[in-house]
């Protein structure tokens, strides 16, 4: 697919790739904690909570795709599937669980 010849014809700006990855991971970290707050407030337990998280990250991916990447993931991400859609899916899971349990305890207690 994207081999050396393709890269020689269409070179990639490394700085922009790093900038985009940093921006996306910042958004993911922030929104993961927010989903934790929401899941705890809703009082979700076990599997529905994780389903809520994965639905939320999919929505955030869609928002990035439509608002920031101008519906053209190919020109902003080197590998659109792993960098935008699926890559950081598990990155925010720990902060999600942290705020989830915190707000679950705060609301139930």
């Amino acid at each position, binding site marked *: 697919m994207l081999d050396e010849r393709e890269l020689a014809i269409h070179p990639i700006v490394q700085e*922009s790739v790093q900038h985009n990855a940093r921006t996306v991971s910042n958004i993911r970290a922030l929104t993961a904690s*927010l989903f934790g707050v*929401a899941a705890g*407030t809703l009082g979700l337990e076990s599997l529905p909570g994780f389903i809520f998280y994965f639905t939320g990250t999919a929505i955030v991916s869609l928002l990035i795709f439509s608002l920031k990447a101008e519906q053209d993931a190919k020109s902003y991400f080197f590998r659109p599937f792993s960098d935008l859609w699926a890559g950081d899916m598990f990155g925010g899971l720990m902060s999600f669980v942290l705020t989830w349990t915190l707000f679950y305890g705060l609301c139930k207690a």
Partner: protein
Amino acid sequence: MGLSANVLNILGLVFLSHASYEHSLLPSAAQAPPQSSILPSVIDPNINLPIDVVLETIVSVLLLCAGVVLSSPDLKPIQWNVWAGRLERSKDARQIKGFGQGGGNPYAALEERPGFLDIRAKRKEFAAWVKDGGQGDKVQ
């Protein structure tokens, strides 16, 4: 863009804190609700909350997501030709700050290095200028 994103963020935070505050006041939320008849028991959310609290939470989280995405810095194009084209057109990058810097050309340092001077043409120009007796503008 920045202002509307901040407004979205603030609205979302206010609604989210209000929803969780309301939830913490409800005594009925601790009791288990009746089983759902449609969903299988594994993915049944087991929420015993008034519908307005649930809706407020979900709407506020969606608002916050949109706000966070909008307020984050813009993505940069990764293809070199798109990136360099944008750089050449931007007013900020066109200012020439020093030798080989700015001018909107990322290859300026390569294209303007002294090795590319046509030294024979310069010598001819200088000879003509000397023959003139040093009058007139010296051609650069």
